[in-house]
């Protein structure tokens, strides 16, 4: 922060000094273009407006009280400079609505029906993106076998009623034997709830860890010089000039590595992904799963969380107790995952340290609630 602040402060101080001294700010009289105007009276102006205004319906409006002003004779209009009232336009002949114009005769071509599949035009395949130098060949995601599907097919259910060929013996009055050893037949009752919590995080999906950067914008074609334009003789068109300047001098693209530049979306996503791997809500209470907490913390330049700075600055959706639980889980995630890379801290661009020195991170479990 200090470097950026100092640079900014020095720059602005220099700007102040320059403005105070006024070096190079002397002004010269500008060339003024003079246009002749004529003066007309108020009555003449109203007459001009009435002549051009449509015949709007007149509503009766209570006349406002007139101020006591001595009537003053308006000056006589200057007949020479009086505006010319345009003549009322001639009414337009409206076509008779009962006789609409006859529709134009159209020749409807007969459709040709063929049984053959039309040949598709040959479409050139899209140019493949250049191979990334950062990523190897990404594995295709492999669908994880569902834990909810029984590994063996379940026997079809028995019919509702079956007449047995053998006659069952009547029950005797003897005391029944203990049936503690009876095996529980679960074959017709496959469990619908998963016996274990298996998440996608436990199974590598093979997806690339970092998304590909979008391709750079293709360079614009160089502006063609005007074939017949004569810069000196042709009238100046400011819009065309501005467009030409834009084409000739495109806006500079943000360059990676600029100190104090905006943290990229990829860096933010990567940071969230690193923390998310350790944000385990498997042991959270149902109340905590409905609570969104915002945690503020500071980070060192090595990408490690300053443990003493971690604090909850807000929550919503649950009670204070729920928020405390949710905060404890969030805090564990922050502190745990910075050790994932051999204690090297979170992977963040060190040249943009000022951007992630202080973080406010909201942990929102809404997407992970199963109900």
């Amino acid at each position, binding site marked *: 922060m200090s470097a950026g602040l100092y640079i*900014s402060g020095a720059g*602005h101080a220099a*700007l*102040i000094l320059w*403005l*105070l001294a006024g070096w190079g700010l002397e002004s010269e009289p500008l060339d003024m273009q003079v246009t002749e105007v004529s003066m007309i009276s108020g009555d003449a102006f109203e007459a001009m407006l009435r002549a051009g205004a449509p015949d709007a319906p007149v509503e009766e409006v209570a006349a406002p009280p007139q101020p006591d002003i001595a009537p003053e004779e308006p000056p006589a209009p200057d007949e020479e400079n009086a505006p010319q009232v345009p003549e009322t336009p001639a009414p337009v002949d409206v076509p008779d609505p009962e006789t609409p114009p006859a529709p134009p005769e159209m020749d409807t071509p007969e459709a040709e029906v063929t049984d053959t599949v039309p040949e598709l035009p040959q479409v050139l395949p899209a140019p493949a993106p250049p191979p990334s130098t950062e990523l190897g060949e990404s594995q295709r995601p492999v669908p994880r076998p569902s834990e909810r599907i029984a590994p063996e097919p379940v026997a079809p*259910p028995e019919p509702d009623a079956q007449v047995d060929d053998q006659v069952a013996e009547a*029950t005797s009055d003897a005391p*029944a034997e203990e*049936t503690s050893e*009876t095996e*529980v*037949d679960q074959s*017709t*009752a496959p*469990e*619908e*709830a998963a*016996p274990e*919590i*298996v*998440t996608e*995080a436990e199974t590598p999906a093979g997806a690339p860890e970092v998304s590909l950067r979008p391709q750079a914008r293709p360079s614009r074609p160089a502006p063609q010089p005007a074939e017949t334009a004569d810069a000196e003789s042709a009238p100046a068109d400011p819009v065309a000039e501005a467009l030409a300047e834009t084409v000739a001098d495109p806006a500079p693209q943000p360059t990676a590595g600029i100190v*104090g530049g905006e*943290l990229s979306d990829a860096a*933010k996503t990567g940071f969230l*992904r690193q*923390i*998310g791997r*350790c*944000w*385990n*809500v*498997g*042991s*959270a*209470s*149902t*109340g*905590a799963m409905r609570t969104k907490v915002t945690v503020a913390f500071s980070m060192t330049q090595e990408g490690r969380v300053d443990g003493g700075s971690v604090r909850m600055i807000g929550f919503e959706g649950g009670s204070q*107790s*729920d928020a*405390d*639980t949710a905060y*404890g889980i969030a*805090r*564990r995630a922050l502190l*745990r995952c910075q050790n994932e890379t051999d204690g090297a801290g979170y992977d963040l661009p060190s040249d943009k340290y000022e951007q992630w020195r*202080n*973080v406010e*991170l*909201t*942990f*929102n*479990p*809404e*997407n*992970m609630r*199963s*109900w």
Partner: protein
Amino acid sequence: MMIRFLTFLMALLLATAASAQEPLRLELTDGVIEPLPFALPGFHAEDAGAEELATDISRVVAQDLTGTGLFRQIPRSAFISTPDSFTGSIAFADWRAINAQALVIGEVAASGGRLTVKFRVYDVFSGAEMGEGLQFSGTPQGWRRMAHKVADAVYSRITGEEGYFDSRVVYVAETGPKDNRAKRLAVMDYDGANVQYLTDSSAIVLAPRFSPNGDRVLYTSYESGFPRIYVLEVSTVGRQQLTTQPGDMAFSPRFGRDGQQVIYSLSQGGNTDIWRTDLRTGQHTRLTNAPSIETAPSFSPDGTRIVFESDRSGQQQLYVMSANGGEARRISFGEGRYGAPVWSPRGDLIAFTKQNAGRFHIGVMRTDGSEERLLTASFLDEGPTWAPNGRVIMFSRETRGAGGTSSLFSVDITGRNLKQVPTPTGASDPSWGPLQR
């Protein structure tokens, strides 16, 4: 003019400085859902006589925690080091290295006929203790309860909600074939240990229900030839019949919040309605008066409302009415038949049994009938009951066929961790009691 210009420049400088310190604001929405790994080195034994108990208590605490499905115990073989003593320093780096997120250490002492268990819970990655150390004392015979209490405290400190391990369940123990099944009331620890029988099998008993403080049990017995409601003292096993209005059958009782109000179904002349009896005054109040069958009432935790099942719409559905009766509002509208509703101790959900398309389900819904979710599916699942913390539901599951048996299962309200509760015999109609004090 110059002053205004300088003021503008100063404001610009301050804004620039402020933007340099603006925190990075992000929102994280994707995490993982997996059991929290914890380490539990065996509790230390202060003396030689406590070694076996220390081992047993450590085992029960670990079983309680892992049995929830919310925790995963790290095997001892992965430990890098173990604490030398209960008061020694903790090498957090060793526990972080094996990804233990919580560490539970304890000590057991048995002397003079007294058993003492103390423990501490640590957040490994914070390097801090979660809460303060606790100590329980009792007789050596009560070691399981002390283990459950330790597990309850650990569970509460990590999850933020109350535990349910030091609780008991009353149920109907079943023996014999399906067409001649002997039934008797039994009570056990929540995990199936310490089974005790409360009645003999001379008469069919049904639907036991614990009182709010766990000292009494309401149940229905056929010993008179007709279903009648009895109140049983758990400590003395003494019982007496609940006095009701004259009727053909009285069944499906349940206590109110204060333990003095009992709501139940009473059948008179072929019509079944819901009644309430005050145990102190003996006053009976009719809460419904409809030609349809109203049954299976259950109080809300605050005692102001009652959920029950009724076929007044032509099919068995769930309704909610005031605890004093009056107009009822239907809350179940899905396909199939709904029954046996039970209000959650938290008051936010209602558990029920649903029969649809030839299968039975245990499900939960909000108290207004919204967000219905089915947690199980089976040939016959019925009789849900809530754990004291409202996080787990226990129910009975019966298997198909003439040799089918009934047993108890539990499931987390998220639908995970479905598992059977071990009982020495067949079991049905569970009723989960409160946490013991």
